[in-house]
């Protein structure tokens, strides 16, 4: 009694039921009858490596119930390519699955497999990703896929304005900041080798680009000083430049002046300045910035700020 056992289309198939062994299998799940049946038919067709339209339908059925079944995706991709199916249609079907199961990652890997067999970028692809980001602008799988897509179709030039539009609507979107880093620096690397580490000074990047990034990031910090994303970005850029943080001292001091400790406007500026002063061997000032962080402006990280103080030879700040 079931979708497959009652179907004339499937009457030649003898389903293979699951064999979990003894009476105490681990993590046994209360399957629905529909899922158990579909899986039994899947085993039967996998056993003979059948590649057909009806099996494509079966894999769709199972993916709807269990999108994290990794071999069913591999099987499906194999059938699609072997039967030379319309891959654009496959992408359209994937759109609906991706929207429904937005935390799943096999879907995105499959999309990448399909797209690697697609010679040109389908016109709907970018607008579909925009829909995904409208749902969750920080979806890790979608960002990972997008990086792959940018490399595959060399989309570097159109990507920067897009990232900026995302940062404009949410300057705290750390995924967008990270994507900006990728756009600026990854185009000079070979993904097969990618021997350049993120923290290495990078001689291949034109100097004007580094300056542009510093100015952009400073403007973002001015908009929202208590936002760690651009502060981290700024530290990364300065390191790429091969310079210390000291050059940004006066910029950071406008958000945290140690003389006016009631008017600190960014704990990240204090953290930044603690490093600037340490670079200048002004340990008293550095210790003071860390003390303000521990006592007033970032007490949930008190243990860490105290640890940093102890590295400079200072005593801990009490509760």
């Amino acid at each position, binding site marked *: 009694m079931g979708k497959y056992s009652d179907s004339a289309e499937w009457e030649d198939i003898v389903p293979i039921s699951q064999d979990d062994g003894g009476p*105490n299998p681990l993590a046994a799940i209360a399957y629905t009858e529909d899922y158990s049946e579909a899986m039994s038919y899947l085993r039967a067709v996998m056993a003979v490596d059948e590649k057909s339209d009806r099996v494509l339908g079966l894999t769709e059925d199972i993916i709807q119930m269990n999108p994290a079944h990794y071999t069913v995706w591999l099987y499906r991709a194999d059938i699609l390519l072997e039967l030379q199916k319309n891959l654009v249609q496959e992408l359209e079907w994937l759109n609906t699955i991706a929207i429904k199961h937005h935390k799943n990652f096999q879907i995105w*890997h499959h999309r990448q497999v399909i797209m690697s067999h697609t010679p040109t970028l389908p016109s709907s692809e970018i607008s579909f990703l925009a829909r995904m980001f409208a749902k969750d602008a*920080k979806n890790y799988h979608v960002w990972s896929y997008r990086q792959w897509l940018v490399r595959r179709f060399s989309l570097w030039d159109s990507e920067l304005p897009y990232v900026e539009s995302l940062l404009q609507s949410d300057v705290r979107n750390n995924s967008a900041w990270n994507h900006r880093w990728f756009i600026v620096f990854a185009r000079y690397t070979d993904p097969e080798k990618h021997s350049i580490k993120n923290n290495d000074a990078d001689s291949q990047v034109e100097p004007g680009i580094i300056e542009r990034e510093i100015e952009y990031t400073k403007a973002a910090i001015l908009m929202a000083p208590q936002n760690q994303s651009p502060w981290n970005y700024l530290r990364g850029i300065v390191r790429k430049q091969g310079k210390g943080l000291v050059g940004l001292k006066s910029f950071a001091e406008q958000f945290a002046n140690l003389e006016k400790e009631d008017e600190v406007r960014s704990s990240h500026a204090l953290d930044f300045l603690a490093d600037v002063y340490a670079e200048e061997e002004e340990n008293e000032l550095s210790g003071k910035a860390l003390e303000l962080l521990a006592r007033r402006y970032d007490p949930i990280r008190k243990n860490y700020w105290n640890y940093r103080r102890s590295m400079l030879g200072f005593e801990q700040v009490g509760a």
Partner: protein
Amino acid sequence: MSTHAASPSQPAPNLRSDRSSFNKERHIKYWLRCLKTHLPTAYTSNDAQRMTLAFFILSALDVLGVLHTKTTPAERNEYVDWILRCQHPNGGFRGFTGTMVGEDAALENCAWDSANLAATYFACAALAVLGEGMEGVRKTECLNWVRGLQRRNGSFGEGIGKGGRVEGGEDMRFCYCAAAVRWMLRRGDVESIADIDVERLVEYIETSVTYEGGIAQAPFHEANAGLTYSGVGALSLLGKIPRKGRPSSDGKMMSPEFINDLTRWLVSRQTLMLQDIEDGLDVAEDEFAHPGSAPAPAPIAFPPTFHVLGGFPVPAEIALHGEPLALEVSPYDQQWVGVNGRCNKVADTCYSFWVGGTLGMLNQVYLQDFNGIRRYLLEKTQHMIGGFGKMPGDLPDILHSHHGLVTLATMREPDLKSIDPTLCISVSARENFEKQTAGGKVNRTL
């Protein structure tokens, strides 16, 4: 090398609190229900990861100290049988029995019933937790299979597909699993078994360190705490993380600069943002609402930019007043400290372990706000039926219940076994590896 829980010389956390209590009996009940009855239908989407669930269930009961008292030897034998049933004849373990076709298994269909790297790590770890040696594991086949999963750039796939192709995305988690399986199985008489390319693996992890100081899924992706745990765990198992008084056994160590940036990134994951503001409904928080607490600032749009042309019209005057001065947080709101997985994200129970476990590998768990995190777990995400949810008010699930529990174990919660943060098993389970080195030979490589 070996891995260690935080050394006892570090200051003990102050565990006093008015309202937080760890309901050990309820957690035991929750986990025994997971072990001995069918999991709800909603777990169907985890069917292919049953080995992962199995490990979490067994390991949680082990950390609670009841795995060997609340199960019979006969039951434990059957658990071992199920794990070994998932072992693939050509090496490695499947994630579940759902792809096995019994007598119909043949060369032309073996790609659809393949072993999986994550499942292999969880299977070996689960066997250790059960007190079982690695005798049942086809060690040579498994190590050779793992080596075959390594790509030219040093990363690992998760399985072998059609025509011997390495399948799976580039993923730091697979790097961790490979390093962990190597650590667990590459002991005793293994000289004749070729090793993975450790140098390339280390290089791959190093290039996945981001400008923020954490580690990403792959080079240039965003730093994430789970992936950082995976990357640092792999480095730790490969002997690349410096430890006090422990000189490197082979080759160079990760630099102090890497450790400093990583530590800053890890402690930055502590957050007072416990609920997704975008979700709107703040139900669980309402009863604790406090008049002094400032609402999270709304996203601020900044003016159109013309980066390509060089200009950036942000009037400094306006910008300087763009954000309310609400930096200082009231002592009331500092009581519960959550942990997020990425910069500017909301807290989630599981990241308390990914972050705390990684700090544990660096011997720096004490840099966290123990009290705040403990109270967040016990008062916000611990569930009255036992287990932990992902966020305040959520129902418990296996992953978050396990991670909440082992986080408390890394903070030396009384009544829980201490855990090895690198392998994510109890210290007593880890000792099963060290005891059972084959042929009585000295543990040579690690």
